[in-house]
């Protein structure tokens, strides 16, 4: 792995995205619009303040997951991935190029979503907005990293589409969005502890209520980062220079 090649790959992905303004618009605005819609639906109820933090984790995560897995699948299919694997560039450079480029977009996307939620839609945040931003960004990058990993197991667009229900929905259902995690059956609670989105939602809820200390938030953030690193390493291991 070399920094020069990683940045070359990052620059290439960003240039590709730059040629596609519609994708940029979708990436940056859609999560915020969805959160706004939710705020509107529950306008006269306390519900938005209860589920708002969880949704802030969910939408950027999901959208980054889908966009990343689709883009990398396209690279696998067009033969440009195979070409790179015949050239002197590390597998980790290729994956990190994607992770950094989409990670950068994730920073903007999560920033916009946090800004809209707090200042426009009136999401009440008792804790630090900076913690909220940090966790939301990590969560969006997590979506990117898992999307990179998932695309390794897909050969067609149809399979990638199936990963939404397979990878994302269980995390959504078990993450505490429908029912707080500690009220779920023990087995499900144990499983949800191993799903990264659960920790993102825990942390965002904690920031919103300001009922935990910084050590708790840092632990949650580190768990998310560990999943990001794990997914990227695993994603580069699944890349094979030789294929059947």
């Amino acid at each position, binding site marked *: 792995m070399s920094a020069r*090649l990683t940045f070359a*790959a990052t620059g290439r992905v960003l240039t590709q995205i730059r040629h596609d303004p519609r994708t940029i618009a979708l990436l940056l605005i859609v999560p915020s619009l969805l959160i706004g819609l939710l705020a509107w639906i529950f306008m006269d109820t306390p519900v938005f303040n209860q589920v708002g933090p969880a949704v802030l984790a969910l939408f950027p995560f999901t959208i980054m997951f889908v966009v990343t897995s689709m883009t990398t699948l396209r690279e696998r299919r067009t033969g*440009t991935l195979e*070409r790179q694997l*015949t050239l*002197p560039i590390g597998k980790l450079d290729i994956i990190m190029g994607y992770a950094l480029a989409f990670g950068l977009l994730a920073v903007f996307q999560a920033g916009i979503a946090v800004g809209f939620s707090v200042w426009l839609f009136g999401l009440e945040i008792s804790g630090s907005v900076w913690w909220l931003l940090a966790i939301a960004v990590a969560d969006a990058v997590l979506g990117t990293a898992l999307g990179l990993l998932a695309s390794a197991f897909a050969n067609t667009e149809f399979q990638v589409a199936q990963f939404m229900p397979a990878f994302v929905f269980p995390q959504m259902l078990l993450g505490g969005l429908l029912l707080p995690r500690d009220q779920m059956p023990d087995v499900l609670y144990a499983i949800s502890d191993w799903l990264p989105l659960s920790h993102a939602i825990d942390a965002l809820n904690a920031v919103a209520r300001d009922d935990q200390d910084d050590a708790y938030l840092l632990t949650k953030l580190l768990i998310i980062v560990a999943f990001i690193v794990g997914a990227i390493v695993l994603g580069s291991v699944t890349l094979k220079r030789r294929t059947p």
Partner: protein
Amino acid sequence: MVNSAIHTDDLRVRRGKREVLHGISFDVPQGSLVGLLGPSGSGKTTLMRAIVGVQRNVTGVVNVLGHAAGSAILRRQVGYVTQDASVYGDLTIRQNLNYFSSMLRAGRADVERVLESTDLTEQANQMVDSLSGGQLSRASLAVALLGSPELLVLDEPTVGLDPVLRMDLWALFRRLAESGTTLLVSSHVMDEATRCDRLLLLRDGEILADETPAGLLERTGAADADAAFLALIRHRPKHLDAEFDGEAAS
């Protein structure tokens, strides 16, 4: 053999449960332009993938420029062009070349050089998605020329091109070979065969002929390349292949 750019011995490739290459042995001399010909499905692409080192389940010897195929050191010495153009559609030609040249540390001057040799200088700032079929395959070829690799493995580079472009490309291949590059070029257009120094004819995963174009015409008694290949492919029942060499000489 030291002066062989490619040396294979009893090369076999299995895909799934089926063996698709059945013990192939041949040598490609350095600096030569070798045509790999055969009907579609004969194993041309698989053979090329084994040489480039991207094919799984390969047994036997495959040496490229003195190293085992797929060695890390070969990644800057072997240029490979797949049948489908492997370039990014949502980048310009120049952006594609700049990206791939960064891996080879080839530099901007080299990018301009390959643009010129593939006659794409005028289209350099055009998005790849907007190119014509001929321009697209030349863009993919241009990437492979970056860094002046010692060996070029080109899978059907002229397919779908008009006759003028095909002539130009073969002239380019010839110039490259004269400057010392070894080229292995697959095709199913038989009249292109005559432009090669040597021919490898592949059928059903086996080598049917490995000789010069002139030698092939002489051996089959055919008037042109088309007829020679038809003679070899059609009129040789498979079970006679093993005895073919001796029989044809008589």
